[in-house]
Every structure is written in structure tokens, then in C-alpha cells.
């Protein structure tokens, strides 16, 4: 990386010279951290009293990664966490395309086993030959970024707004500049939340610890009742998810779930409308089976599955860490050269276009290996030991990812 680091630094400096960062609310109460090539945090405990001071620092030092604390501190300049005086935090959520199960990973990710040298496509964390921990090269595409966007919608609409009652002005969304989105919620009430409260909110969103019995799934006499659709929050959500199950389930799966014969399953599902209407009113079990325990456990399993599908797969470790440093909105991501851009309209936001920082010029690079990828309106690759002139954004992207070097 002898030439590549100065190349990246020069482009990053140019970007920070020409662009102002979006305002960080209460910047003087935040901790900042910076990173260098291959390491996202090499120095923390930095503090700035104004946006101007921050900008000057970025232009002079040109870090490849810039992070800002979600926490607020009464003495952000202090060198130890204890002395900083934590006084609350933003509530944050992160979606990373890596964590979402999508088929595209077979197309664009690579793994290699450092022990037995086996290799292949896909996101395999253990070697298929010897079981050792693999080295994985993760990429992203429209499909997995769309999955992250879908989950962001689910989080914002179903949980943050509908359940927690946040308004649009309390919520801001940022592209991470890499594989996902960061969602920030800020208001006075959020600042008053303690760590236990944040863990409760995180578990609520992920349905961790959800017990259907506490959502009215219980016997009344010999009849099993479940939550009605008119109920609020998770109870109503479970009920509606069970209705979807009854609407879509195949007779074979239905039979296996409840231990029916296939003929009985077909007969029951012949009148799906009646079953769905029953759930609407809280009558979940309309099968008149003798083994009540097995019916109850079947419904519990289905409700638990429904909870998983209705939940949002946030990175919980990010949410519960009230002192975490997150990518500074508006800054460049050192692993991609893309901007951690603020998203004003999630529907129309294109994470592979609206995050491009370097829009002019071209650079000749030697590429070791890269899958097909899109940036802006152009599709590049796949590449294998290729030497090619690329638009600056694509060249920076590959160099920052360590997949290319500047051509001689």
C-alpha cells in the first residue's frame, strides 16, 4: 500500500476541503475517534468545540475513518471514560447487509481456509473441508442493500413510530458508507433512558425473550385462545402474523406443524377464511384435536416463528452500547470511499449512487479479484487479475477495499 495510502489520503483531503460535515447535535459534548488503513479506531478521546474545529482537524489529519459517540459527555475532552461524565445517549440501530440472510452472498462473497487452503463462494465462516475458521471477503450488491433497507423501513414504521411513538423529526437515517444503515433517534425522552431501558427497547425490536403466553396465548377451559388482531404492539402483530401463516401455509407444512394427516390438513385449509376470521377474534385453535398439549406447543412454535419474521434484525450490540463510536454522518468510509450520507427519503435513496463522493476523473488500477458491482449507473467487473482504467469512485472503492492497487 505504499502508493495507495497517499492516493486515498489525497482524495479524502480534497473531499473534506470541499465539503462541510452535517451538523453534529451538541458537538461539544461528543467524543470522536479516528482510524487508519485497516483499523477503524486507532485514536479516540478526541473532542471538538465546533464544526469548524472538526473540519480543520479532518483536513489536516485526513483520517480514513471518523467516528462520533452516540453518548453525550459533560467533559468530552477528558482522557478516560470515567472522567468524561456520561449524561445520556442517542438511541441507535444498525442494519448490516452481512447479518441478513440473502442469496446474493453466494454470488459476491468469497471464503478461504487459512489451514487447508480450501476456498469457495459465499459467506462461510467455517471451512467446509476441515471446519477451521475461514477468512471471508464480503461484498455487497443491490439485493443485500435492499434487504437492509427493507429492515430499516420495518424498524422505523412498525417499531419507532407505531410502537414507541417517535415522530419523523426525532428520527434520522444514515447510510453507513459500507453495507448498511444507521438509524438515530434523538429527543429529550431518549436522553433520559438508562442502559436497562435501552436493552428493553432493543429486545422489543428483535423479539428477544418474547413469550407468547404473556401475549394471551393460553387455554380457557379446553379451548386455546390467542391474541386478537385488534390488540396493540406485539400481541396484535403475532395475531396478524398467524393470519398470514394460515393464508399462505402449504397443507404439507400445516400437517407437519400440527401432526395432522395430510387429508385433514387439506380439509381444514379448504376453509382458510373461517380459520383466519377465528384468529381475528382470538380463537386460534379451531381444529378440535384431542391432544391439547401438542396443539398448544404447535401454536407456540408458530407464534415464535411469527415473532422472528415480524422483528427487525438489528445489531443488538450496537444499540445497547451507549458509549459507542459510530461513523460520523457525512464522513467518508475508509473501506469504500463512499459517504456515510444522510438519507432524506429512504424510498428513493440509492445507497450505491447517492453515497458517491468522487464524481469526476479516472484512475488506472490493477485488480486482484472483485465480483461484479454497481456504482452509480455503471456496472463493473467481475475482475480477476485485470488492469483497467476506472472512474475515480470505482477505483477508490476497490483500493480502499484492498482489492486493487494503482497500476504502474
Amino acid at each position, binding site marked *: 500500500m505504499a502508493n495507495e495510502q497517499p492516493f486515498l489520503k489525497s482524495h479524502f483531503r480534497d473531499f473534506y476541503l470541499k465539503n462541510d460535515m452535517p451538523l453534529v447535535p451538541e458537538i461539544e459534548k461528543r467524543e470522536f475517534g479516528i482510524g487508519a488503513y485497516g483499523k477503524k479506531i486507532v485514536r479516540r478521546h478526541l473532542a471538538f468545540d465546533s464544526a469548524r474545529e472538526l473540519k480543520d482537524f479532518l483536513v489536516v489529519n485526513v483520517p480514513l475513518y471518523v467516528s462520533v459517540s452516540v453518548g453525550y459527555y459533560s467533559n468530552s475532552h477528558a482522557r*478516560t471514560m470515567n*472522567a468524561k461524565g456520561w449524561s445520556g445517549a442517542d438511541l441507535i440501530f444498525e442494519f448490516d447487509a452481512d447479518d441478513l440472510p440473502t442469496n446474493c452472498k453466494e454470488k459476491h462473497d468469497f471464503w478461504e481456509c487459512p489451514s487447508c487452503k480450501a476456498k469457495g463462494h459465499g459467506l462461510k465462516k467455517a471451512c467446509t473441508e476441515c471446519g477451521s475458521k475461514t477468512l471471508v471477503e464480503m461484498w455487497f450488491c443491490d439485493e443485500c442493500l435492499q434487504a437492509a433497507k427493507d429492515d430499516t423501513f420495518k424498524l422505523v414504521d412498525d417499531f419507532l413510530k407505531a410502537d*414507541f411513538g417517535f415522530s419523523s423529526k426525532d428520527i434520522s437515517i444514515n447510510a453507513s458508507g459500507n453495507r448498511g444503515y444507521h438509524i438515530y433517534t434523538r429527543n429529550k425522552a431518549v436522553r433520559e433512558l438508562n442502559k436497562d431501558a435501552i*436493552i428493553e427497547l432493543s429486545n422489543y425490536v428483535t*423479539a428477544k*425473550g418474547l413469550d407468547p403466553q404473556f*401475549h394471551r396465548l393460553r387455554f380457557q377451559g379446553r379451548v386455546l385462545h390467542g391474541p386478537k388482531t385488534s390488540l396493540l*404492539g406485539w400481541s396484535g402483530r403475532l395475531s396478524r402474523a398467524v393470519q398470514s401463516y394460515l393464508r399462505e401455509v402449504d397443507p404439507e407444512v400445516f400437517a407437519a406443524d400440527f401432526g395432522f394427516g395430510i387429508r385433514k390438513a387439506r380439509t381444514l385449509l379448504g376453509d382458510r377464511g373461517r380459520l383466519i376470521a377465528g384468529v381475528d377474534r382470538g380463537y386460534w385453535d379451531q381444529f378440535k384435536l384431542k391432544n391439547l398439549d401438542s396443539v398448544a406447543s404447535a401454536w407456540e412454535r408458530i407464534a415464535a416463528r411469527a415473532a422472528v419474521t415480524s422483528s427487525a434484525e438489528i445489531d443488538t450490540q450496537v444499540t445497547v452500547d451507549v458509549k459507542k463510536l459510530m461513523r460520523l454522518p457525512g464522513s467518508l468510509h475508509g473501506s469504500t470511499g463512499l459517504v456515510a450520507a444522510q438519507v432524506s427519503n429512504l424510498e428513493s435513496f440509492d445507497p450505491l449512487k447517492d453515497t458517491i463522493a468522487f464524481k469526476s476523473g479516472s484512475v488506472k488500477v490493477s485488480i486482484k479479484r472483485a465480483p461484479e458491482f454497481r456504482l452509480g449507473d455503471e456496472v463493473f467487473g467481475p475482475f480477476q487479475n485485470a488492469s483497467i482504467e476506472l472512474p475515480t469512485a470505482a477505483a477508490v472503492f476497490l483500493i480502499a477495499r484492498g482489492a486493487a492497487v494503482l497500476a504502474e
Partner: protein
Amino acid sequence: MFSAEDLQFAYKYPFSKEAAKIVKSLDVSLDDVPEDLFSRAEGVVFSLAKGNKVNLALPDSSSSAVRDFLSRLVLARIIVGSSDSEVLKSRFSTAISTFSFSFLSKEVNLLDVALAFLETVDISENKDYSCKIGLNEFLKYPLRINELRLVNNDVSGGFVYLTKDRLALFLRNLGFWLTYNSFARSYKGVPKKFAASAKAAKEFTYSSTATFKLKPGTKFQPELMCSCMLELYKKLSEGLLPSHYGNVAIATFLLSLGVPEEDVVQLYKRSPKFNEGTARYQLRFLAGKMEGSTKYSAPSCRKMEAWGLCLKDPLCQKLRHPLSHYAVKAGWKKPGAKGGSSGK
């Protein structure tokens, strides 16, 4: 003057502001406490220290009986507070909140009771629920039972909607914390007999609830750990570093169990990123041995779950702490038993 209704309310809910006002009016002088009253208060504390249930019910509800009851509780609270024993404080708070729950569960106008404690409680507009409470107020104190956890309640528009039964449970939880937090004051300078009684109660509590710790010379056996901790331990043994929370979890677990710092350092030495100075600094920080640092305890199962480190070991069904898991497997503790004893 307080009405009979005020006195009844204070009797049923000794953690209420009404009870505090009445206690203040009693003008109890700690230097001049009648011997009989003091010994009854001591009786409450020692029952708790032994882990016994305390019967707080009064034979009659006359105003003098209620005043006597409140005086007894105040003195008991001072003894518990002076003991500085977390176990005793927790048991006292549980006893009070359980006592109040016996009334809460029968209250006809439970919402009126709730209004005395909560600012944001209101009647629910949805007839499937009895009331709603603002989300922040609901989350103000840790929720100690699964039924109360946010994910097991219905939340909409920034409010948590509760049935009457769930509201009673919520108020019990609130009663626990209001009582527990009432200990957050200085007990320096209490009369000698309170301090002596507190010291005795603390020693008694300690002897009945020794922590799960390896006795010096006892060998640490990794296979006795729960699968979550074992996974982290294996990672370290293979020279891989767990996540930040994984590191905190395994390090505090080993230190809490009494594994010597040197052995923990040796474990971290296998990582290619190992830096002895940093590792020792961090371990001492977690152990509360650095200036200004507080001792970090090993995370409970609930915290492990929140940190994404819980592997849902079926053996853990009735255990709530990785240290309990080790203690059960090591035979120091019977499954389901409350107390514990140290390693043989």
C-alpha cells in the same frame, strides 16, 4: 392530621409519598427508640438475613397499629441501610413489595392507586386494556420479571398498555425499586446500637449466602462453565479475540470465580494481538483494582442475552447466572436452590 384512609394507604404501600409524610410526622428520635420497638424492627431484619419470610400483616388496622407498623419499618430500614449489604437491601425491598402486592392484586380501583405513583398513567382508550403508561416511565426502573419485560407487553404510540393484573405486577416492581432506592443515602452517624445490629445482620447474611468462588488451591475446570462462557473461553484458547462484550463477559466471569489474574493473562497471551501491559491494565480495571474504577461483576444470563452472547443452553432453564451454572455443575449448589456456598 391524617385521615384513616391516608393511614390505610400508607400501611398498604409503605414506599408511597403518603407513607413518607406520616413517618415524618411521627418524629421518631433514633437516640430514644423504645427497646420493644427496636427489637421488633431487629426481628424483621434478622428474619430477612436468615432468608425467612416476614409476616408484616397487622392484627388490626387501627391508626395506632399503623403508626407502630410504619415506625418499625423505618427502624428496620435504617438497620438494613446501615448494613450496606446489597442482599439484605434486596430482600427488604422484596418483602415490602410482596406485602403490597397482596393488596394491589385485590384493589378495586387499582388505577387510583397507580395515580399516586405514576405521572403518565391513564385509562386505556382500547377496551382490551385497563390502562396505559408512558414508555419512559415504564422503563424508568429495571423490569425484574419476564412478564413485565417490554417485549412481553403491548406498546403503541409511546405508551405501554396493561391489563389490571399486569398493572398490579408493575406496581409491585415499582414498589421494589422505590424501597431499594430509599437506601441511597448516607447512614453515617446512626446511633451505635443501629450500627451494631446492622453489622451483625450483614455478617449473618454473608454467612448464609457465600458467593460462588473457587477456594484457594482449587483448580478451575473450564468444562463446568455454561456453553456461552465456554464458547468465549474456547475462542481465547484458540488465540481468537471475542467481541468487546465477549471479552468483558469472560474476563469478569473468570475474575469473579476467583481464577487468578495471572492465569487469565496467560489465556489472553495466545492472541496474536496480545499486549501484556494493556491486558493487565484492563483486567485490573474490571477487577476494580485501578484508581477510580469500580469492580465489574460477571454478567447475568439476561445481560448475556442482551449482549448477543447467550447460546440458549437447555441446561440453563432454571439458572439465571453463569456463575450459578458453574456452581451447580461443580456441586456447590443444588439446581433451583437460592443460596450458594463456596467451592470446596
